[in-house]
Structure formats: C-alpha cells, structure tokens
C-alpha cells in the first residue's frame, strides 16, 4: 500500500471551495513554498459563450484516483503535503472547480508536483463536465484514461 500523509486531503464537494483554507491546510514550519492550482469556470468554450457548467463524478472511484495521484506526488517529488479538492454540481462562471495545493521545502518540487497533479487528474479521474450555452449543452471533450490492453491471465 502506498503511504499517504494523514495531513493530505482529497475531497469531492458540492459547496464552494475555500481556497485560503486549503492553502493554510498544507502549510508546515519546514516548508518554504506552497504552489496552488486554482481551476475555475471560463466564460467561453471554443468561442461560444458559456452560461454555466455541471460536473458529475463516479465518486468512490474518483476519490481513489485522487488519492493515487497524492501517493504518486510523494514518490516523485520532494513535497510535504497535498490537498486536491474537486467541486461537483452546477458551477457558475468564475467559480473554482478544482483546487490543488502543494507545500514543499523548495519551490521547484512544488511547481512540478502541482503540474503533474492537474495533468494526471485530467487524464485519470472519472469526472465529467457538461457545458451549457444559450442554445444547448454538450459534454466537454475529454481524455480517455489508459486501461490495460488485455486482462492478466488467471485473474
């Protein structure tokens, strides 16, 4: 089992994300930097004006994939703590949909870990976004997560 610091946080929430609280949560006396990725709802998509977004998730699997990202961060980068929170339900323009907060003794590890976390989340965490426009709605183009090409024998 990968080890995860009990101070890390992985959550799916319906309510607005408290960005300052998540900055504070990861902060430790031995840290020198916190890198935050704050993803929020843009007012347009491919040139069409967005009204609002709706997010849904395969919740238990999404949380388990978010925790996997956390344990990868600790293996790959010299970080202290990580918090990854994704909001679900209806989000208005400008509202934070995903917040990743990483603390580290030195900035390079924090930047690298934060970038890895959001890139991996977008490829592997089962969350879906529907974009609502004046004249209709579409599921956002996404990425197909990698799956094993063939089943392990005798599983």
């Amino acid at each position: 089992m990968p080890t995860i610091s009990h101070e890390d946080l992985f959550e799916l929430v319906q309510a607005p994300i408290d960005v300052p609280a998540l900055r504070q949560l990861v902060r430790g006396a031995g840290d020198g930097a916190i890198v935050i990725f704050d993803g929020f709802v843009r007012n347009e998509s491919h040139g069409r004006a967005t009204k609002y977004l709706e997010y849904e998730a395969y919740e238990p699997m999404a949380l388990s994939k978010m925790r996997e990202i956390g344990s990868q961060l600790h293996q790959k980068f010299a970080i202290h703590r990580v918090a990854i929170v994704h909001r679900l339900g209806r989000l208005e323009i400008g509202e934070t949909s995903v917040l990743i907060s990483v603390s580290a003794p030195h900035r390079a590890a924090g930047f690298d870990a934060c970038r890895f976390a959001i890139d991996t989340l977008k490829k592997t965490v089962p969350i879906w976004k529907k974009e609502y426009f004046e004249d209709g709605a579409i599921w956002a183009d996404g990425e197909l997560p990698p799956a094993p090409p063939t089943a392990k024998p005798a599983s």
Partner: protein
Amino acid sequence: MLFFGRVHELTGFREETEELHEGTTLDDLFERYTKRFPSLAGFRSSLVASRNQEFAAWDTKLADGDEIAFLPPVSGG
C-alpha cells in the same frame, strides 16, 4: 452496472443489475448493451471500462458482485 455522463443519457439509467453467464467478459457485456441501446455501439472506441473501480481491459472476465461501468472520456478540472 453504473452509468455516467453521455452513457447515462444514452441508456437513461444511473444503475442496474445484470445477470451474466460464467466467463462473460466486459466485451460481451458491452455487446449486450449495444443490442438494447444501438446508439452505444458507435461509442465503443471512446469508452473505457472499469471493474470494481479500476480501469480494466475489455477481455476481463467478470465475477459475481463486480461493479462495472463504461466510462466516457474524462473531463474534470
């Protein structure tokens, strides 16, 4: 069986239970759904299967009590 996003809209279900023969694979199960929901067939190459909350190969054999989903491309963030 669990259904999300576009797949939920196509089938109209959030979840249901399926009775399977021994040795049924994810591919077989998907095939069965395309008979009920022909519009699903065109999406096969843009879906990934999961078994018990892990991404799984299409030739995976299923067992009693498995939790299965055919997941559309993910678009969180």
